């Protein structure tokens, strides 16, 4: 009798724990499944079907979308562009963020103003900012060319030259992101105990040595977080392209996500857009796994 009761109770409390856990998980899980996992699976399936056109309903085409993607020169171009874009923006915005954070962590007059100034680009909407930069880059009458003309340099069509259009987007992205990443570094810097610096001073360590051997290693977890974010940004932040170049000239400044948008909503080729999305997801997934697996090991100061 007593044993049976105990059993029932333990079953009940076990069930209760289960129910409790699932109740706690469900709000987030429902949202994730509905808006993240289901679309991913749906997109994956859609990439094996053709786009429905009038009189030609969607049908199973196997890997045809993938083979035509491999034969699509624009796909390769935007992929290459995205690679350069990531390579250019990530190291630059992260190192600039660290530099700014170290500077505004020090004590000096007007520190609050400088901190606010560095953070301002982050709070401005990308579309508004891109419209301002559009006029910076405008040949002849833009800020950039006005400055160059002071030095007797010829005007240049910054956004109209395939050689410079992508770089112009990169500069804007670095300017916009660096302040955002700075905030994380600033918080991490303030968490470093001051005793370490005092000890280092007593030991006679120079400032550069201290920065290199103490500060940077202690900031590694933050760096991992910031680098992951910067990588994601370089693939998913394309708002400025809409304003500055629309991907032109001749796709020179188009990125993968912008191309997906064009294919999906301008050409209404949803099947091909799904195919490209699957590729984008695969790239991001591989990068995330790689970053965590590789860096996680070396991230914590031991």
């Amino acid at each position, binding site marked *: 009798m007593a044993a049976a009761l105990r059993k029932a109770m333990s079953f009940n409390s076990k069930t209760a724990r289960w129910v409790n856990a699932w109740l706690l998980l469900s709000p987030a899980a429902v949202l994730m499944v509905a808006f993240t996992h289901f679309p991913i699976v749906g997109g994956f399936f859609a990439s094996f079907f053709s786009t429905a*056109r*009038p009189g*030609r309903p969607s049908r199973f085409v196997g890997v045809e979308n993938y083979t035509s993607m491999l034969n699509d020169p*624009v796909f390769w171009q935007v992929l290459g562009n995205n690679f350069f874009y990531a390579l250019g923006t990530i190291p630059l915005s992260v190192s600039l963020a660290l530099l700014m954070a170290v500077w505004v962590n020090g004590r000096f007059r007007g520190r609050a103003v400088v901190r606010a100034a560095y953070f301002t680009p982050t709070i401005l909407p990308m579309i508004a900012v891109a419209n301002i930069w*559009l*006029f910076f880059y*405008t*040949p*002849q*009458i*833009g800020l950039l060319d006005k400055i160059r*003309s002071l030095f*007797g*340099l*010829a*005007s240049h*069509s910054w*956004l*109209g*030259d*395939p050689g410079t259009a992508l770089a112009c987007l990169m500069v804007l992205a670095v300017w916009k992101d660096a302040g955002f990443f700075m905030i994380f570094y600033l918080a991490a810097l303030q968490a470093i105990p001051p005793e370490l610096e005092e000890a280092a001073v007593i030991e006679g360590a120079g400032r550069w040595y201290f920065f290199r051997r103490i500060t940077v290693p202690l900031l590694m977890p933050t760096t991992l977080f910031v680098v992951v974010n910067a990588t994601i940004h370089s693939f998913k932040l394309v708002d400025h392209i809409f304003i500055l*170049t*629309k991907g*032109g*000239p*001749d*796709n*020179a400044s188009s990125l993968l996500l912008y191309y997906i948008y*064009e294919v999906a*909503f*301008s*050409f*209404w*080729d949803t099947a091909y857009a799904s195919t490209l999305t699957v590729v984008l997801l695969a790239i991001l997934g591989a990068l995330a796994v790689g970053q965590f697996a590789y860096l996680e090991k070396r991230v914590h100061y031991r």
Partner: protein
Amino acid sequence: MKQKWMRVLGGLVLAVVLGATAASAAVELNMYYPVAVGGPITKIIDDMIAEFEKTHPAIKVKAVYAGNYDDTRVKALAALKANQPVQLSVLFSIDLFELMDQDVIVPFDDLATSAEDKQWLSSFYPALMQNSKAKGKIWGIPFQRSTIVMYHNKEAFKEAGLDPNKPPATWKEMAEMGQKLTKKDASGNVTRWGVLIPSTGYPYWMFQAFCIQNGRELMNQDGNQTYFDRPEVVEALQYWRDLAAKYKVMPEGTVEWGTLRQKFLEGATAIMWHTTGNLTAVREGAKFDFGVSMLPANKRRGSPTGGGNFYIFKKASAEERQASLQFIKFMTSPEMTARWSMATGYVATSPAAYKTATLEKYIADFPAAAVARDQFEYSVAELSVHENARVKKFLDDAIQSVLTGAKSPQDALSGAQQQAERVLKSYR
């Protein structure tokens, strides 16, 4: 007691029902609207809508401003697919085939059936109706319509020793005058270009003007065949490229559509090609005397028409369709059209509008406002084919690759033609 409650309840239900019918008596219309040029376009449209609502109290119209033509099409179609209430829109005139393929619009012939309506349908300039007709029906009503015109800075002409009232009338003259108008500073840097023709935003549109002038249209009437690789077309692109590469009257690379007006106003170019939709904004912003003329000719004169038409969507109920029709008729009445044309520079879409006293007087003071109308005689339909956005992009990319010096006109255009063929052959 129970009976009393029933009476109260019955009264409540009745009140709710009556209230609902009273509210539904006002038809609510949502309209997406594209803004392609600077200036207070949204305010002008909102004012016109307010006037309409004053005279038609049973209809409420809400305009949603959704970016340029491409953005607006994307948003309107997305709204329709998501079952959002959108009853009518102004969308690109050249989106016709795409909208028909998606089966979202209704022909006006089915709605405008009275004798008066029929007359209204035939009141517009034929040049503007070319992009409205397909399968023997009328699907779009011209409203925010334009052609490309040439703006020139008269003071720059005087400075270069040219007659300010004689803008170039041929390709040859444009290149020659452009060279005289291009100004350099002591170190050899250009401070003022001879000619700027925008090649972002709508490159195919400007290019179509060159092609028409060279005696070639870019597509067939059924919208399932393009002629990108014809010799006249290649020649036209070569001339555009030569303006920068050979004659040096235009900078290397592409010229931005959105900032060009500002550059003209600041004297950074002596001549620009742009939409008439910019006319009023240029007039208000120019601190110098400027002229407006038809585009120069090669084998002939010519410009494509451009801009947006009213469309009514299939999803709208019969009542909403009729309300939309009333609204569109109001907006395209001669008086409203005249007012719209004066406020923006877009062409008035009917001859009757040019006969209104206000517009006649306006043109007498400001003859530039009549240039676009006069150019109708030489105008042809804008590039419009099935899967228009995609085919247009092939051509846009080809044009930009030539203007940036990456490809030869022949290579680029043959490539674009092949790509267009692949898409369009299934529509024949």
